[in-house]
């Protein structure tokens, strides 16, 4: 089932010389987990901002084309309306704290209060997502006193509490230490269990290989590749465009290991399976 349809999307920021996105068209099915990769200025963040309607409603600039979330056209809806269908979490955990609430518990209520969710429902949702994001221990703390990983999980929980169908994460771990990164990816795996459609921009290719069923590769505002994860990571021209591949894909490439679809494996388990098939169970 189609969840997101993007038709001929182009966008140029105010004062910018070049288009940040240039004639992008793609479809995302319900339940897909899309990993978005690409070098600097590829248009990854611009795409994220477009999906939640910040473009064109928050940023003034030249917007062309359309984005449909189910039947909702982002151009004709307010950011608040779109935010109930598409959630956004971005890099800086600190700036995602509302700044108006004194406890983690109250912070989770911020979006719900704004959207007029009834009190009982609000409490039920807060309790659920505190639990899901493992924030129960810090629920009475000041949000600004959390660790980076906790803050980012709070940001994810705050958005989840709004119950969007689509979850967009724009490099959610780029400002976190390894422990925080691990915490956030654990949280991301919960999103998948909740059966949400996820768009995740990340440089952590190994993690994308684990989670994403498709990869969108952007470069200079255009789509280089949009295909199954293994297919994209098996391409030979990745390095040429300044991108690497997941570590297991690189190893498989060195070893010349390919599966029956003529693709390199992307996960440890696949390599193991293939090696076992080739050499028998007694290796390693």
């Amino acid at each position: 089932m189609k969840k997101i349809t993007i038709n001929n999307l182009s966008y140029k920021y105010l004062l910018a010389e070049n288009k940040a996105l240039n004639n992008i068209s793609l479809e995302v099915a319900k339940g897909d987990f899309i990993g978005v990769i690409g070098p600097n200025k590829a248009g990854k963040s611009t795409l994220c901002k477009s999906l939640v309607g910040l473009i064109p409603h928050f940023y003034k600039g030249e917007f062309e084309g359309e984005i449909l979330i189910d039947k909702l056209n982002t151009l004709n809806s307010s950011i608040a309306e779109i935010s109930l269908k598409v959630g956004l979490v971005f890099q800086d955990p600190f700036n995602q704290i509302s700044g108006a609430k004194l406890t983690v518990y109250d912070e989770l209520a911020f979006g719900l209060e704004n959207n007029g969710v009834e009190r009982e429902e609000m409490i039920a949702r807060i309790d659920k997502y505190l639990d899901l994001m493992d924030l129960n221990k810090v629920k009475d703390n000041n949000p600004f006193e959390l660790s980076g990983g906790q803050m980012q999980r709070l940001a994810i929980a705050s958005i989840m509490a709004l119950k969007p169908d689509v979850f967009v994460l724009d490099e959610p771990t780029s400002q976190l230490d390894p422990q925080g990164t691990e915490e956030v990816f654990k949280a991301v795996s919960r999103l998948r269990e909740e059966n949400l459609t996820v768009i995740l921009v990340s440089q952590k290719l190994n993690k994308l290989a684990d989670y994403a069923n498709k990869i969108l590769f952007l470069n200079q505002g255009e789509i280089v590749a949009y295909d199954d994860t293994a297919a994209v990571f098996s391409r030979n021209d990745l390095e040429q465009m300044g991108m690497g591949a997941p570590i297991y894909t690189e190893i498989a490439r060195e070893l010349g290991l390919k599966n029956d679809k003529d693709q390199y494996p992307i996960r440890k388990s696949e390599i193991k399976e293939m090696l076992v098939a080739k050499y028998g169970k007694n290796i390693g």
Partner: protein
Amino acid sequence: MRNDQKKSLWSFNFSTMALVLIPVSIGINYVGKLFAQTLRLPLWLDSIGTILAGILAGPWVGAISGGINNVIYGLTISPVSFAYGITSVAIGITAGVMARMGFVKNMKRAVIMGVVIAVVSTIVSTPINIIFWGGQTGNIWGDALFGILRSANWPVWLASGLDELAVDLPDKIATTIIAYIIYKGLPKRITVLFEES
């Protein structure tokens, strides 16, 4: 930023960027005052944020920054601050209007803007000083001047006005220059986002 609600005179309709700017500008006021105290400067420097808010997002946002600044000060630090809320509002409006008239183009104009802000601040503060303190400002040098002028039988409003101006003129000029320097240092991609829709 697009706003689909209809705009009426009394509605509270500002861009989110402008709204988020207000608490930050009040924080800047506070930090300015803090650094001025720590460095033992003979100035208040406690309205840098209000003036910046006016410059960046226009007179109304400047006015709200000034007003809320004093309400919050009044509620949490010193209740007298409520009374001078009107002065802060006037400072924010003046900064916003003058910035729109092109007074943040260069340093020379910024200094003129500082003088105008000082005069406006004095005009608004003086009646409050008279109602509240009988005309004094609480500043030693200003009040000494007030005492001398009163002993020479100058009218209260004039003595009090000069008392206030003696304090305000150096302070507001310095404050405006600092706000101007910060404004010029901000990246353009940020400043365009503040401009009112």
